[in-house]
């Protein structure tokens, strides 16, 4: 049916995008010994080349642009070609992923300088980028799943990069296992898809076509969508499977930037966006997605309000912002479906830049503070770290959705999509109503915690960490000194070297630039994000989604901005100078404060229920195996012996005549049997 389509040069060679970083990783891994301090070069080159190819594909993006590279797997009726899809969605993701990852890799060369496992780090980064780009490029649910798990495995190895730290080991394992729980849902979705898809074809085009034509029953579509969402909650850190993400910062900071911004967490959002032509047909699931996103955004923002660890604040803010993306995805109902998916992807796009920026800036702070990241232990760093200060400010303002930065426009799109869903949804309008107002409240909280982190770190009287700080945990000094010794030696309190500062500046520039593009393109194309939507529309199945009327809502924009400014203002009042206000608030809302500080005890709850159940069943199984099953089988084995003792022993009477007689009898029976057998023959 797509015979007319002729794949272009970049479509045919899009497989190079995952291939180059893979090659870089292999070169680094094999030449680790010889490369040593230059181990970043092959990976830099790989990601750089991948970025160039990605840029090339941007222009060739087309609804039907796909290309089979080779036949990968064919087991019975499960046939999976390695087929790439180069459409609006995938090219956007590819360019973003390779660009941000490239900057992170550059930053990491400075940050990880001197680490004994420097080559291993870069090899893993290369593999990580390979997995992520492969995930995005694939035109097949199973192939997506392959890279999906690959991303999980790379994150496992990167979070556990400093393997001798027990906390890193625990965080790595947690990340992998929680993601496996999500993958379980994704896998079952694939089984289901396989059994309902015509010809057992798992490629996106055939499944969407089948869904549209009604070949897949509605109940199956709803079930599959729900399972895909389940898978997405793990990768994109939504309730109930978000708990791994905040712990994932046990890895080196560039890894956090990579996981939280450009790769990994965007995978879940991408999967649902990719499946939107199918998921949009299940309004009930959509409402659930929006509600889950909303709850996650609120919960994570509430936790971020009180955290003292700068990176942890950022981690929860990622969870919260991902919640916004899910709210937008979930709003894809009826005739606003396309609007919703564009909003979600636009927020993902802008978030990738400013969140990578914030994480790298946090890394820069951490680098300067000798691996201390507790905000109570330093203060007023704006004079010491001017570049970090300014770039962090840009990122923070974008996160707080301050106009006209990129975050402002994307958050506005998300809110617009939700308000569109209020009108478009038939039976779940009330859900979107709640989601809309909660999203606005969350926007206020976002601005507040961002401002809090910013002011606590960079404003007020200058203070540098010292080991005899009251906030420093007793083991902390030792542990950090130890961790430090794996990394780098330098005096604390200095601005990062150019290799780290330049990526920060580029990311900050992009954050501003995207905002400016929106501002400039607004009068020309009739909407701030129309340029983005125009590209995304060139995606498989997206044109069939409802377009809807999209107008810029001044009400939403004004309200959002006011809330954002309010949040920042409140943070300024409370934290710009050390004052008694925070302590008073702490006392006033003691229980709430403690709950938020302890992350509402969700981890403890999971440990006490799910993990404990598994552990206890494991012990029970072990006990049963040793004392029941084994004994039972041994017991059965004893029966013949008992029979032998009780009965057969009588016949062992030593009388030759008896033996002879019984032998003869047996032979006679045998002969009779054989004769009868022979007689039956014709």
């Amino acid at each position, binding site marked *: 049916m797509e015979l007319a389509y002729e794949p272009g040069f970049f479509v045919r060679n899009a497989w190079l995008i995952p291939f180059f970083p893979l090659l870089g990783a292999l070169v680094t891994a094999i030449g680790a010994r010889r490369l040593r301090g230059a181990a970043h070069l092959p990976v830099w080159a790989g990601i750089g080349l991948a970025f160039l190819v990605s840029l090339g594909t941007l222009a060739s993006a087309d609804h039907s642009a796909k290309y089979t590279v080779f036949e990968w*797997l064919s087991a019975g009726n499960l046939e999976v070609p390695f087929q790439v899809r180069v459409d609006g969605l995938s090219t956007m993701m590819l360019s973003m992923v390779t660009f941000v990852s490239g900057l992170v890799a550059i930053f990491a060369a400075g940050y990880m300088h001197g680490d004994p496992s420097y080559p291993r780090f870069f090899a893993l980064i290369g593999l990580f980028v390979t997995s992520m780009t492969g995930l995005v490029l694939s035109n097949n649910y199973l192939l997506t799943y392959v890279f999906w798990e690959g991303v999980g495995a790379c994150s496992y190895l990167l979070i556990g990069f400093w393997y001798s730290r027990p906390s890193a080991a625990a965080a790595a394992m947690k990340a992998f296992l929680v993601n496996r729980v999500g993958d379980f849902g994704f896998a079952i979705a694939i089984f289901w898809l396989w059994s309902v898809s015509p010809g057992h074809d798992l490629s996106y085009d055939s499944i969407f076509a089948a869904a549209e034509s009604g070949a897949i029953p509605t109940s199956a579509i709803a079930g599959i969508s729900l399972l895909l969402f389940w898978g997405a909650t793990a990768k994109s850190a939504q309730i109930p499977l978000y708990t791994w993400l905040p712990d994932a910062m046990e890895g080196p900071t560039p890894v956090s930037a990579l996981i939280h911004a450009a790769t990994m967490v965007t995978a879940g959002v991408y999967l649902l966006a990719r499946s939107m032509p199918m998921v949009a047909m299940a309004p009930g699931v959509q409402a659930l997605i929006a509600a889950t996103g909303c709850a996650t955004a609120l919960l994570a923002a509430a936790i971020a309000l009180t955290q003292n660890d700068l990176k942890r604040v950022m981690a929860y803010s990622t969870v919260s912002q991902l919640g916004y993306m899910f709210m937008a995805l979930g709003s894809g109902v009826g005739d606003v479906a396309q609007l919703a998916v564009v909003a979600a992807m636009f927020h993902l796009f802008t978030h990738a830049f400013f969140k990578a920026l914030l994480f790298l800036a946090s890394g820069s702070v951490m680098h300067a503070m000798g691996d201390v990241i507790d905000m109570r232990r330093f203060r007023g760093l704006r004079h010491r770290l001017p570049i970090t200060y300014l770039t962090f400010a840009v990122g923070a303002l974008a996160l707080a959705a301050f106009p006209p930065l990129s975050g402002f426009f994307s958050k506005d799109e998300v809110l617009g999509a939700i308000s569109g869903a209020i009108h478009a949804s038939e039976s779940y309008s009330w859900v979107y109503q709640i989601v809309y107002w909660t999203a606005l409240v969350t926007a206020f909280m976002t601005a507040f915690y961002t401002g809090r982190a910013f002011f606590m770190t960079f404003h007020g009287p200058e203070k540098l960490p010292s080991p005899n700080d009251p906030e420093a945990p007793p083991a902390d000094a030792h542990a950090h000194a130890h961790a430090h010794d794996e990394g780098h030696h330098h005096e604390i309190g200095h601005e990062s070297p150019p290799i780290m500062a330049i990526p920060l500046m580029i990311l900050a520039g992009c954050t501003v630039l995207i905002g400016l593009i929106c501002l400039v393109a607004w009068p020309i194309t009739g909407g701030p994000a129309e340029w983005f939507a125009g590209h995304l529309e060139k995606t498989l199945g997206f044109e069939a989604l409802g377009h809807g009327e999209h107008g810029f809502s001044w009400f939403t924009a004004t309200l959002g901005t006011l809330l954002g400014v309010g949040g920042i203002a409140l943070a300024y009042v409370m934290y710009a100078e050390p004052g008694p206000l925070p302590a008073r608030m702490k006392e006033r809302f003691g229980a709430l404060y403690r709950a938020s500080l302890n992350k509402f005890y969700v981890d403890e709850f999971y440990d006490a229920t799910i993990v404990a159940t598994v552990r206890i069943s494991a012990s029970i199984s072990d006990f049963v195996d040793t004392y029941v099953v084994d004994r039972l089988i041994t017991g059965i084995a004893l029966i013949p012996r008992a029979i032998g003792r009780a009965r057969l022993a009588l016949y062992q009477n030593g009388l030759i005549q008896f033996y002879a007689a019984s032998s003869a009898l047996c032979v006679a029976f045998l002969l009779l049997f054989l004769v009868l057998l022979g007689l039956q023959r014709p």
Partner: protein
Amino acid sequence: MATLLAITIFLPLLGSVALALIPDRDGRTSRRVAMAVALATLACSVVLLLAFRPSVEGPQFSAADKATGHYGLSWVGHDPNTRGGPDIRVAFGLDGLSLWLFVLTSLLMITAICSSWESIKDRVAAHYGFLLALQTGLLGLFASLDIVLFYIFFEFTLIPLFFLIGIWGGPQRRRASVTFFLYTLAGSLLTLLGVIALVVVHYQFSVDKTLTFSIPELTQGLAALDWKPWREVGSWGSPQVLIFLLLLAGFAIKVPMFPVHTWLPLAHVEAPTAGSIVLAGVLLKVGSYGLLRFNLGMTPLGAQACFPLIASLAVIGIIYGALTALAQTDIKRLVAYSSVSHMGFIVLGLFSLNQTGIDGAVMQMINHGLTTGALFACVGVIYERYHTRSMNEMSGLWNRMPLLAFFLMLASLGSAALPGLNGFVGEFPILVGSYAASPTTAVLAATGMILGAFYLLWMIRKVLFGPLKEPATDGHGHGHEPIASAETHDHNHDHASSSVPPLGWHEIVGLAPLMFLIVAIGVYPRPFFEQIQPATRAIVRTIEAERQMAYEDEHPQPVQRVRRRGGGGGGGGAAAKKAEPKKAEPSKKDAQPKANTKSESKKAAAVKSEPGQASSIEKGGR
């Protein structure tokens, strides 16, 4: 090529005889000779692998008698003129089901010898002699085309392994070896009954009443029996179900399936590393190979009827094995229970009775051999250095042996079915296939994916991650710091027991090829599946044909081909059958369906030679 196959099979046995004759004082000569023999065998196996033509369906490298079409040479007295007497033949050949198991045996033998290289100091010549004898047993078993020959090799493998565990094993070696021996012997006696019954049934009721012991002929003949009760599998007492259960007894213990698995952890813990590698890597596959070759190939309707039972046991095995593995502190026991869990996947895939599941299961047999063999070899590396396998006594070995960390990590991730490594391309088709057979089963089995990752990562976290803590190597116990101090325990590299050597060349040589295959199969599984598929397709076709005939037995209208869930499940077919009460057919009408059956059975007999007709049957089945 037939000669080469025979040479490959008996070369290790020759080697083992040679080891017995060569005088050897310090054991160095013995291990060199053993290694040379094993390498030569591997080289021959690889030649066979390269010469294997994936497009051919039947057994290859078999010296087929041009006149009679029989494979191999006559062994036990047979008069070709009167066609009387049992015609037991020495017939070898490899098809897609056995090819890779054959090669895997040769490959894992290298790993086994490598892992014994330094660790076996006592009665060296005998150790390698038994290992090589075991190899001949396994190679012969996989290549046998005669059912008696198969059984002889099947039983023969017990003897060397009995001695390997009993002589070079751990403290409880005697109990372990006796348990292992009795357990498997008890099962295999029942299997022998089943095998005899198969031959007799075929002799009595096949179209041309031949007494044959040839596996390919039996498979074809039994699928086209002129005996209706054979295809009536409604009750436990029906002949096919009975024979199925008899065959199952021995193979289920070998696999091992829940609840007859308890010999396995015991045998593994006590066995020397080489024994564990061969036991887990290849010997367990004997069970699943038998299930595939005999239970599925010869009693497919019995398999279909027993699907609920087998699938439940497999799923229980998967979950229960994984949970029990999670509770272990001994690494070897952990890996042993992981085998129980993973073999459950294989059985589930086989009994999904569709192409996808069976393909996955055959693939997974190879994969499990590679990953588990590698895991046991890694455990052997640790044990040889620290003389303990308790995970509580060690941590952070990554700091000490980064290469071991790499191997162990790769093998574990492969075993945890990480895409891109080998476990995934076996496990996923199995789950897809079993989903087609029964969605609930597949969903339950898929939880094994989560649990599997749990215990493997737990093991990795305990052994590789964390600050370096090594068990005492000199027996003074200074390595036994409590874990609580792990946090502050500094891991400077001047620990008292830093005399632990890095991985030796023999350890690297033993593990590297396994690692290569773990990655290669995962990255590009297609060629491997291409070698497997013609044979599995034939099995599936037999199943389909017999299903179709059973269907026509029950619905005696001529040429009525109703669309059924062909590629779908065994469960579905069985359920549909149960739903319809069996009608006693009037004897008047008996003539017509019988004629129909006959023509049909001839067709099925012709399946192999005429693919065109076969595909028509297949289409009918679907």
